[in-house]
């Protein structure tokens, strides 16, 4: 009796999911049959005018940091919230990752790796408006440095190198910097997060110093994400 109950429950679950799949299939099929390719006014505009309007070659970056920079602010806030949640969830006592300690090869390699990671992160951040990458990815790569330190030399060393308080502050500074750069737009008589409209010289597209405020926004996000992810990771490790 109990067994039948369990099986019927399982069947019910599968039935639900399958019917959801069938519905989705219908919807996708219907959508696919529509003539939807013509409806790309917005992205056509971005593609044709984006380089002149924002000065960034990477249109994804220009969408992220200029056209829809407000989204990015919200997204950064989500990350900050997550970091704050994790940092307050951890207790004061410290704990390390369990398992066997690594050999000397690992620690040596880590030391070699760290400058490379730093440079890669910097590159991704600074060339965010020219190449794939940007503040988020660059920030993550930079965050890998303390993470690697944590993994190889334990939390104490990592936190000695990068103080948790400092990380938190730099995260906040990154977020504040993003907002402050956005406020520049208001100062010059335009709107919040305005770039080209706020009489910021956009420079020549394709140059490193171009695209107005986008690189600076990228840097701020990079700082924020790097610090935030490092906090998240260390907090998870410390969690006893």
């Amino acid at each position, binding site marked *: 009796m109990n067994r039948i109950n369990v099986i019927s429950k399982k069947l019910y679950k599968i039935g639900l999911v399958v019917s959801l799949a069938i*519905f989705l299939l*219908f*919807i996708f099929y*219907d*959508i696919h049959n*529509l003539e*939807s390719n013509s*409806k*790309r*006014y*917005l*992205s056509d*505009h*971005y593609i044709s005018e984006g380089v002149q309007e924002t000065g960034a070659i990477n249109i994804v970056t220009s969408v992220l940091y*200029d*056209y*829809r*920079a*407000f*989204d990015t*602010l*919200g*997204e950064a*806030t*989500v990350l*900050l*919230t*997550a970091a*704050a*949640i994790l940092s*307050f*969830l951890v207790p004061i006592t410290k704990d390390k990752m369990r398992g066997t300690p690594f050999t000397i090869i690992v620690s040596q390699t880590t030391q070699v790796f760290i400058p490379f990671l730093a440079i890669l992160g910097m590159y991704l951040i600074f060339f965010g408006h020219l190449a794939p990458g940007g503040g988020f990815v660059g920030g993550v790569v930079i965050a890998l440095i303390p993470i690697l330190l944590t993994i190889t030399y334990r939390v104490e060393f990592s936190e000695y190198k990068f103080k948790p*308080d400092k990380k*938190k*502050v730099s*995260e*906040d*500074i990154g*977020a*504040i910097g993003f*907002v402050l750069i*956005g*406020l520049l*737009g*208001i100062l010059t008589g*335009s*709107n*919040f*997060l*305005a*770039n080209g*409209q*706020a009489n910021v010289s956009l420079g020549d597209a394709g140059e490193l110093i171009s695209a107005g405020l986008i690189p600076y926004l990228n840097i701020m996000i990079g700082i924020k994400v790097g610090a935030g992810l490092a906090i998240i990771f260390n907090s998870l490790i410390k969690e006893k």
Partner: protein
Amino acid sequence: MEAAVWVIILPLLTAFFIGISKVYVKKIFVPLVISSAIIYLYLLILVINNSYPPNVYSVGAWRLIGINLMVDPFSGLFLLIIALLFLPVIIFSVKYIKSYKHEYFIFTYIMTAGIAGMVLTADLFNLYVFLEVSSLSSCALVALKKTNKGLEGAYKYLVMSTLGSFFILLATILTYYLTGTLNIAEISLEFNEIPFKIKSALMAFFVFGYVLKIGLIPLHFWLPDTYEDSPIPYNVLSSGLVMKSAVYALIKVLYIIFGIDFLDKSGLLQIGVFWGVITFIVAHLLAFQQSNLSRLLAYSSIAQIAYIMIGLFVGTEGGLIGGNFHILNHAIMKGTLFLVTAIFYYSLSAVNIEDIKGLAYKFPILSFTFVVASLAIVGLPPFNGFISKWLIVEAALESGFVYAAFFILVGTFLSLTYYLKVIITLYTKNDKEIVVEEPGLSLSLPTIFLGSLCIVFGVVPSLPLRLINKIPTFLLDNGEYIRVLLGG
């Protein structure tokens, strides 16, 4: 209209600065929090005053190719709720919250920013982002006490809200795919050519996603859990703003993007009203069973939200006015109730209904406030809840939902059963000597302020209704909204 964007940025900036002040300058913490809340109040009043005729603020000055913020009477109402609740709650929390003070304020400010963003934005994806901001930070607030129950509630909340978010995101993506834009007005225009079936499927996803956050039965289960062991001042904002912001988003999406004609044709209005009726009946039945005061109030919140949904889904002008007025009233009433509960908890850590026995003789004024607010939430005259319920019932009757109107009155009766239970316990003499920590003026003053609003809005309902009366024209006829947003 710079103020519109400041409404979102100021709480964010405050939150970041609190984060810095935690490490370096600890002394400025309280002045920072209070002064920021006061400036915020001023900003909100400024924006609300300018909400009619509606105006558009374009972030980055990109106009239609970027993200726009739009201040219309509907969002003005929600800003009004923030204005009414935020400063009292902040003043209350400065003394009330003892552990994790900084985190509490960081999350509260971020949550407020998220809600303000949800309310103001006119962009579908931006709406999702701010929804995520507000729900993640409110989830953090649920877990703030780090008790078993708090963490469990936070986990359930996280699971449900993420599930809801993914469905909203799915619908958003499909909408973008179909229309090629994310601006609500343009989507609304494009949607005229989309076949009925696809639109209904999208609507189902939107409705499911948002209702998960609103908590209509049977999607309500996580909601009382989040209330049970969270800091009680947060519950004020949670029931007054977080749940309501989901209502706001749902209504905005449904009325502006899909349009009232489609809602009527697809049968959502009928389903919504029926759903609301079921919800409040069941919620009232469940609320009677609770022994924990916060949980009882949570179930009551579910029921009240159901009334609001009925008002908003009736689909007439009167219904929208009644529903929106009830949103405001419920925020005030529930805020008062939670704040009084919080003072009880603060003074003698009473959480169960049994524990508050005889407290009326210790706190006569606060208990009176509690009685006023609970009678208001039951819907007895001459308090504000009565007026809004009256408007909802009248609207339901006018548009033919006779059963809904009738059951609202039955629900009023049912809700009296459990509120009266609490009140009677409050007024029963207790022989035990109660050791009481006196709540200071900073705790009782916000409570009494909100409680007095219950009476003021009941006697002079025209005060808020001046704003609310302008809402229906924007929702019932989405052409007006679209015209303003497109700047034509």
